């Protein structure tokens, strides 16, 4: 049955191309193809569909471990939203407020991006859309001071949820990563256990650099979850497979558009379906 050997290699090449173009990265792709080698050699794995199923199951196992829901079990429950420039932090906060609006009476946004042009105005519009209150200072203010005020306001006003928006920054900017650590320290000092969720926002169109982003933000802040945005594009977001496997950070949400409703909790099966679509 020697003809089968040649078919296998073509299929493996095809799978490799598929995985790499989905941004899983050559190392993760190679690991996956190796991991399924034994399983695909068995005689009941005799078609491309069967091989595809095997690899889907392998990826599912990795991503399932990353599917851990957020338990809103504190009041106020504090989210600190971080990530590199332009990934969708501010929009994601607006969407999260909408997502959690049921049974919630008061949501507060903290405009701790005091650097970028019109960052505060942008968050203000999202707050209005989502029915949230806004704590802001002037542009150029100390972001930790905004966070401090927001924590105290959340307590004083019995807010259910507090979302702290931060300025985009590259994980390689050491002083800006220190700024984030300081914001987290101040929040924790003023409210034990807060921020309860340190949410790292990643853009699905990002390539292998996402792993470095996740690693460095995690080292600095202990990221508790990831929001993967812009999955409504043609990018597949395969970078989360390596992130799940290597860093063990859960994926909590996916962003699929620019409107208030365009946020879903991460579901591994759905993600894999879309990946292989």
């Amino acid at each position, binding site marked *: 049955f020697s003809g089968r050997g040649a078919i296998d290699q073509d299929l493996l090449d095809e799978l490799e191309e598929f995985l790499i173009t*989905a941004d899983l990265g050559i190392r993760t792709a190679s690991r996956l193809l190796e991991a399924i080698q034994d399983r695909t050699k068995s005689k009941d794995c005799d078609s491309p569909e069967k091989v595809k199923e095997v690899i889907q199951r392998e990826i599912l196992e990795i991503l399932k471990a990353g599917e851990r829901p957020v338990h809103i079990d504190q009041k106020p429950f504090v989210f600190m939203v971080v990530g*590199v420039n332009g990934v969708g932090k501010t929009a994601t906060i607006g969407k999260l407020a909408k997502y959690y609006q049921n049974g919630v009476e008061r949501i507060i946004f903290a405009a701790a991006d005091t650097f970028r042009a019109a960052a505060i105005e942008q968050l203000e519009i999202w707050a209005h859309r989502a029915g949230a209150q806004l704590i802001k200072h002037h542009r150029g203010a100390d972001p930790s001071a905004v966070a401090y005020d927001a924590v105290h306001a959340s307590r004083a006003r019995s807010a259910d949820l507090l979302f702290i928006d931060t300025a985009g920054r*590259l994980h390689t900017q050491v002083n800006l990563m220190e700024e984030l650590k300081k914001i987290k320290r101040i929040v924790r000092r003023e409210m034990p256990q807060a921020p309860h969720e340190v949410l790292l926002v990643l*853009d699905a169109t990002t*390539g292998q*650099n996402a792993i*470095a982003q996740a690693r460095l933000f995690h080292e600095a802040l202990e990221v508790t979850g990831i929001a993967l945005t812009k999955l409504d594009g*043609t990018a597949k977001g395969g970078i989360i497979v390596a992130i799940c496997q290597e860093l063990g950070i859960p994926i909590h949400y996916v962003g699929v558009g620019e409107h208030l409703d365009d946020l879903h909790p991460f579901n591994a099966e759905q993600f894999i379906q879309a990946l292989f679509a």
Partner: protein
Amino acid sequence: SLTDKLSLVFKKLRGHGKLTEQNIQEALREVRMALLEADVHFRVVKDFIESVRGRAVGEEVMASLTPAQQVVKIVHQELVTLMGSENRQIRLSGNPPVPLMFVGLHGCGKTTTVAKLARLLKGNGRVPYMVSADVYRPAAVEQLHTLASQIEVDFYEPHQGEEPLEICKKAQDNAVRRGCDTLLIDTAGRLHFDEILMDELREIKRVIPPKEILLVADAMTGQDAVNIAKSFNDQLGIDGVILTKMDGDARGGAALSIRAVTGSPIKFIGVGEKIEAIEAFHPDRMAARILG
């Protein structure tokens, strides 16, 4: 580094005497891996490796005392040739105000880049006029206006309910009236397959028309760079590319992918959030960065 990895490959091969084509295969596998890790698109890598294979199995490597360095040198040269171009300036000839339109995906840095270029042009003695045709993103217009005020460049104040095409036409009229010689059009982030939004850009292209359409792309973009670039180029025609966030540590393989599928030159790179943070694109530096 790639040179180290290749040195290892050739070290264990050299023990067997003269180098063979099979040996070079292994070296090219390392090169392929480096390019894929740098986010160059799978197919672009395939084509590129094929294009360097001829030189890689030639005398310059086979007869070399340092074959690892030779292979890297060849790959580097081929990358520079691929990404190099003479027309890396933005064309500013024609009746003033010369319109430049900036397009790209969400969050790639268009608005910031428009302001950076306006400042550069002003520094070169030109009189720019800025306009935001983004009616979707919250506070998009405020963002552009804040930046424009910062660099003391004139900008268009849109009226309530004005559509993007209308905004561009009125901005153009205003720029003429004020004697400005360059019109910089910031557009909303959009998906390349969003028919309605791409139509909007086609209309602006038809009516204005821009002297240059510049694709703004994020240096950390992965395999999707090929889809984005091809789609924008097929639907609009891209005259040049600006690669942003090059101050990060993304290898930037998207640069090669975009160049390969559009043939358009990368004209500038964004190297920071500050308004001064824009530089000319250097293909040799980009090649070294991609190879890691």
